[in-house]
């Protein structure tokens, strides 16, 4: 290891080398050496450079703490005024100055869980498809690229397409089912959201399924098990916690998704009565009302919704990552 903080060139050329070299060569080397030292001296010193690195790393930490503190500080008026009852208050009425988050908490849970159920129905087969049936080759590359592109489409475009393609279809379905034909609502948003989160749970699911040790699979095959039986009795039980973590991480994403949901959920501030009624999620109510929020209490109530969203998604993300990390260690 080279010692910290020393300028390696200023140590100088070893003197005994001069004996072996002709004088002109020695002159040349000395010149180069001098130039080199002048060059290095202009550069950063090592300790200063290391300080910059630490500052850059620490900066990220500071940003995160500042984000949390700003959210807390900005929502203090609401926290003071409503206390913990904020989460359970069932009325959100800006005119009367009454702010309760319960309709949005319910709306968020409804939409996200329904979306999660729908997307798992598709992401699990994709994970098996890519992790077991078609591990490589053209088909696998094709599906993987399409799914990656799916993840890259901006959420406002999902919302736009949902609004103009899905809403009329859902409205027709609602007329057939004899419920109020809003078109927009929880069901529509869950469908859009489900499509949006498929890539996340699928990519994690694929990874954990391909982590399953092949000797376990081979043992089962050699006992005469069919592929289906291997998947059901060996792969899925082994990858269970990882698949769960993937679903958890996509839940974190679903909870915070804003634009697509805002455009197709119908924006109603009441507790939803069924899956076909309009509602609002935590994120969509912030998106809708933030710019028109007048008054300190109104604004800080909206920020508090953001704080709730921040804490819930952070918790879910950390939990998901911990599960995946533990699974990765076991797999090794």
């Amino acid at each position, binding site marked *: 290891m080279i010692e910290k903080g020393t300028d390696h060139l200023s140590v100088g050329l070893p003197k005994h080398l001069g004996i072996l070299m002709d004088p002109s060569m020695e002159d040349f080397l000395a010149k180069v050496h001098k130039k080199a030292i002048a060059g290095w001296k202009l550069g950063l010193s090592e300790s200063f*450079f290391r300080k910059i690195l630490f500052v850059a*790393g620490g900066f990220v930490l500071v940003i995160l703490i500042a984000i949390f503190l700003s959210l807390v500080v900005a929502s203090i008026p609401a926290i003071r005024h409503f206390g913990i009852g904020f989460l359970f208050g069932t009325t959100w009425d800006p005119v009367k100055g009454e702010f309760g988050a319960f309709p949005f908490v319910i709306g968020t849970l409804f939409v996200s869980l329904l979306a999660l159920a729908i997307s798992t129905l598709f992401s699990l087969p994709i994970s098996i498809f*890519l992790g077991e049936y078609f591990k490589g080759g053209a088909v696998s590359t094709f599906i993987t690229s399409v799914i990656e592109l799916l993840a890259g489409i901006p959420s406002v475009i999902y919302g736009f397409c949902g609004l103009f393609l899905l809403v009329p279809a859902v409205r027709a379905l609602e007329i057939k089912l004899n419920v109020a034909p809003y078109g927009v609502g929880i069901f529509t948003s869950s469908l859009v959201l489900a499509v949006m989160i498929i890539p996340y749970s699928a990519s994690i699911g694929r990874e954990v399924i391909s982590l399953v040790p092949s000797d376990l699979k081979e043992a089962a095959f050699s006992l005469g098990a069919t592929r289906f039986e291997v998947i059901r009795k060996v792969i899925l039980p082994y990858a269970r916690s990882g698949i769960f973590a993937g679903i958890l991480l996509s839940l974190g994403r679903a909870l915070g998704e804003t634009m697509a949901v805002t455009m197709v959920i119908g924006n109603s501030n009441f507790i939803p009565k069924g899956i076909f009624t309009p509602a609002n999620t935590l994120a969509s109510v*912030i998106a809708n009302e933030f710019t028109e929020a007048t008054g300190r209490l109104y604004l800080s109530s909206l920020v508090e919704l953001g704080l709730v969203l921040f804490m819930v998604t952070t918790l879910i993300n950390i939990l998901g990552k911990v599960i995946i990390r533990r699974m990765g260690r076991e797999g090794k």
Partner: protein
Amino acid sequence: MKEPSIRKRIIADKSFKAIVILLSFVSILPMFFILFFIIRKGISVVDWSFLTHLPKPVGEIGGGISNAIIGTLMLIIISTTFSVPVGVFAGIFLCEYRKGKFASFVKLAIEILQGIPSIVIGIIAYVWVVLSMGFFSGLSGGVALGLMMLPVIITATEETLKLIPDSLREASLALGVSYPRTILKVVIPAGLSGILTGILLSIARVAGETAPLLFTAFGSPFMNFNILKPVNTLPLMIFNYATSPYPDWHTLAWGASFVLIIFVLGLNLFTKVVTRKWKVQF
């Protein structure tokens, strides 16, 4: 217990495989639906005057999206200026001190930062920039997007630098090159392609963001080069026009979606191709 016959087991196996393949293909259908509709409805709208003209008020025919294109590029430049220096240095930090306790905290912070919903980032930029300056501005939108780019750039830098073999840096140090020079002139250039890929991907990620811009960049119908004034971007424009009740504006929104999707997916594809070519290999 009675075992199912071999015939039944084979049928179960075959039908399971069929179901898996069927569901997998069904779930990539939305991608083609979306692309198909955006292209069909958008391509007839997009022409040269659409790209170079300002939007017109309701009722007047025509109008374009030039201000939104300029605004999107402006915000990308602002956010990149913020996030690239910090991101790259933080990435170097994580790679150089990966065993330290402090680094593990930083890493956790990055993971949390990455998971923060975009609307919350919008609130933060509003509280930090808009409230303290007193008006909506492109700058605040740039800050919001910069915050979203940061974790992507840091992770990409760290992952790339980890792949650079120690022998390279040891060779440089052994030649007497100082530590900062070794990092800046040997390690970083060796991993430059990976870092650039990360930056491009982060741009692709934020170029389509709407939620953090709703109450920061805010949107405007005018051409504006001043970063201290409200700025229009493509996603904001799509949102505002799509949720408006006017069919003319819906048409404009389809055109804007077409441009946006070409830009974002093009950037993604370009990055993918480039990554394959430039991949850090040792």
